[in-house]
């Protein structure tokens, strides 16, 4: 059996076995679960050969699986997050209801994502895509809160995307006679012009939904916020990247043949930019960490969409690098929220404060990840942002730079809110006995945070796989050009100079300052957060002085006109209108026998009257 099949089947079998193992022993279940993720991951990295195709037939349709360098890059992300989050899940799900359900869907999701990356034909692509959708749907509704609203919204939008994709797929089939991706790519330039435009647009709609691009993003905040945090780190970190994966393929292989391709790219880029701005503003307004991160994810995906839509070599690298970075830091951040939720039972900023001394490692993860998120040098997030701006400027997309920069600056607001909300501020009595998260949750979190730092110093670790992938898609070798156009990655052998320099300067000064302070260490003493300047007033132990409510009120007041109505609102109205219409169609069936008989007679008469026109000569 081919190792690709083996990996997929291991996941599937693992999912079923893990789901049932809970009946006997919880510990066994945890162990099996981790094994079910790690063994295929190890197999993937050791056994799978690049560019090897496995074909088989289902239902008279020829299907092919294989690994390309491009999907290899995404597979790294999926498996990295998959394994990290799996280990985390063991701690997170400990003692929670629906553990088997969770493990089952988790493994199915990872399997489906890998399947998508393996797919070399549209049918298996779509099949895995849909498995991913419903497995993640089941995760979104898992907590049982607002399922009819959030879950259905997620599913409807996924269905819009998936069905757009399905439509494209059957149209492709009508054109090429089979479902192979490569065949379609080869025949694409010779298609009729209408189809040439229609098919990529349909595919892009499909991918945009998962990548949460502006008008199709409304599912994302709720879904990210209400699925279990351990899953959301995969959901937002890796699953959303499947949309990016598809988009990049469409951009590179299809739209480059199309005269209108540039226009479509620009439109998508602007949609991404709008997503980034609006989602960032909404993230600022959130008081719940989960929702904040959810909106933030949408915003960050907006940047990635900008980058891949621009599609210059550097932008493509930037987009994919940011996609990877986003997986790392957003995965870690959702894990942080999960840890806080696990330890305190709430994710509301206005309730939880001052956990920094209770959960220092969690805070450290959050800090590093937030720095990466905000794109502050020298962590990896900055490199992605820098490449994005650089490529936007070099490709003359000046307005996009401004928009992107604006939302990136505005992202500082929610970044600070996130750190401040949970960890800083007054240390309260209520949370006095909160403990640090268990080790199984800490290790994956910290590992991802370390990943952010590592990629800050050595971005080439991941830029090279990206570049290989892009070359395999038929893209020019952009990695080499990067050295020519920029000195940020000034090459000394294979090292990057600038980042270590920054690290060095920062290190030297931090040490100096720390030394200066520690010289007087005996005079520097710790005082509690109640001992603050309060104009003389003495806060009692139960009084909460932390400033949490309406955190960014002045800013939100300034941007109020933009935020009056959410896009959600339009969808809701539209949905309500549709339901009203559907209610009318329901009334057609009046429940009255005479009416039905009347229908029958009228129908007969109408047909008889129409007969000449109806059946033709």
């Amino acid at each position, binding site marked *: 059996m081919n190792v690709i099949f083996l990996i997929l089947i291991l996941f599937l079998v693992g999912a079923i076995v893990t789901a049932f193992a809970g009946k006997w022993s919880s510990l066994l279940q945890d162990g099996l679960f981790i094994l079910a993720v790690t063994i295929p991951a190890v197999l993937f990295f050791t056994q799978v050969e690049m560019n090897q195709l496995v074909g088989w037939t289902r239902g008279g349709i020829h299907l092919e699986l294989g690994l390309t360098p491009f999907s290899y890059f995404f597979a790294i992300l999926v498996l990295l997050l998959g394994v990290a989050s799996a280990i985390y899940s063991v701690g997170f799900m400990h003692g929670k209801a629906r553990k088997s359900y969770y493990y089952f869907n988790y493994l199915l999701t990872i399997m489906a994502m890998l399947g998508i990356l393996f797919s070399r034909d549209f049918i298996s692509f779509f099949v895995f895509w849909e498995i991913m959708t419903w497995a993640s749907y089941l995760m979104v509704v898992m907590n049982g809160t607002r399922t009819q609203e959030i879950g259905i919204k997620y599913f409807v939008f996924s269905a819009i995307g998936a069905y757009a994709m399905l439509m494209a797929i059957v149209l492709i089939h009508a054109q090429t006679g089979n479902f192979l991706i490569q065949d379609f790519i080869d025949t694409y330039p010779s298609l009729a012009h209408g189809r040439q435009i229609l098919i990529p647009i349909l595919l892009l709609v499909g991918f945009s939904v998962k990548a949460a691009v502006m008008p199709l993003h409304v599912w994302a905040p709720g879904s990210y916020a209400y699925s279990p945090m351990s899953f959301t780190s995969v959901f937002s970190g890796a699953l959303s990247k499947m949309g990016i994966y598809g988009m990049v393929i469409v951009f590179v292989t299809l739209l480059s043949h199309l005269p209108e391709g540039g226009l479509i790219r620009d439109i998508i880029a602007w949609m991404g930019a709008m997503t980034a701005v609006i989602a960032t503003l909404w993230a600022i307004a959130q008081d719940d960490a989960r929702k904040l991160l959810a909106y933030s994810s949408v915003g960050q995906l907006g940047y990635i969409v900008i980058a891949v839509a621009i599609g210059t070599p550097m932008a493509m690298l930037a987009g994919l690098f940011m996609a990877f970075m986003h997986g790392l830091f957003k995965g870690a951040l959702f894990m942080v929220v999960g840890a806080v939720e696990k330890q305190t039972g709430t994710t509301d900023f206005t309730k939880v404060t001052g956990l920094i001394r209770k959960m220092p490692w969690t805070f450290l993860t959050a800090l590093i990840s937030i720095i990466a998120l905000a794109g502050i040098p020298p962590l990896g997030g900055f490199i992605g942002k820098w490449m994005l701006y650089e490529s936007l400027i070099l490709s003359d997309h000046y307005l996009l730079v401004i928009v992107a920069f604006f939302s990136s600056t505005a992202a500082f607001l929610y970044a600070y809110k996130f750190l401040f909300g949970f960890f800083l501020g007054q240390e309260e009595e209520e949370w006095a006995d909160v403990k640090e998260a268990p080790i199984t949750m800490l290790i994956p979190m910290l590992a991802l945070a370390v990943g952010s730092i590592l990629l800050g110093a050595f971005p080439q670790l991941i830029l090279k796989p990206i570049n290989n992938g892009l070359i395999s898609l038929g893209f020019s070798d952009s990695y080499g050009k990067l050295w020519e156009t920029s000195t940020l990655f000034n090459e000394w052998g294979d090292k990057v100079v600038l980042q270590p320099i920054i690290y060095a300067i920062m290190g030297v000064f931090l040490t100096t300052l720390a030394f200066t302070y520690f010289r007087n260490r005996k005079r520097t003493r710790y005082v509690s957060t109640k001992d603050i*300047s309060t104009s003389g007033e003495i806060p009692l132990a139960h009084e909460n002085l932390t400033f949490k409510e309406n955190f960014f009120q002045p800013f939100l007041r300034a941007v109020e006109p933009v935020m009056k109505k959410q896009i959600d609102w339009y969808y809701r109205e539209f949905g309500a209108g549709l339901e009203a219409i559907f209610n009318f169609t329901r009334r057609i069936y009046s429940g009255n026998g005479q009416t039905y008989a009347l229908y029958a007679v009228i129908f007969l008469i109408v047909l008889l009257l129409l007969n000449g026109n109806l059946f033709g000569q």
Partner: protein
Amino acid sequence: MQNDSRSQKIVDIIQAYARRHSLWILAYGTGCGAIEIPSTMTSRYDAERLGVRGAATPRQADVLLITGYLTVKTLKRVIRVYEQMQSPKYVIGFGSCAINGGMYWDSYNTIKMLDQYIPVDVYISGCMPRPEAVLSGFGKLQDLIKAGVADGPKRYEENFDWYRANQKKIIKNWNFADYNW
């Protein structure tokens, strides 16, 4: 910097100079004295030329200016503020109320002697002292700093039990934490 006595001496001199020419005041404006501070600070008398400047919070301030009477209730706050300030720190009692209770000499809830509760470096007499008097008070404080006798925190630390006993004598419910002095 080594523990060389000569270099230490130079540093001390510079320190003393810096300290007396940079007095950041935290005005605890309890009574009518608070109104004298603006005129001291603004164009007419311009205390800033002496390096006197307002500080926003106790952590940043050098001088605690008690501008008037203190009731039992406000004394509590003053003690807290004083303890939040960072050494070296100075206290200026301002007006006769701070000195001996002034017109509140027989009031049932106004303290009569500020220096029983926190170490006071300089008293400025008057009811109220005019800005000239305030400036001369700052001058006196500068002299004391130069002479090295404005060592309030040291006195407070050394006689801490005595101060605390006095404070607790009138503040019956000592319900705020002792900040590990």
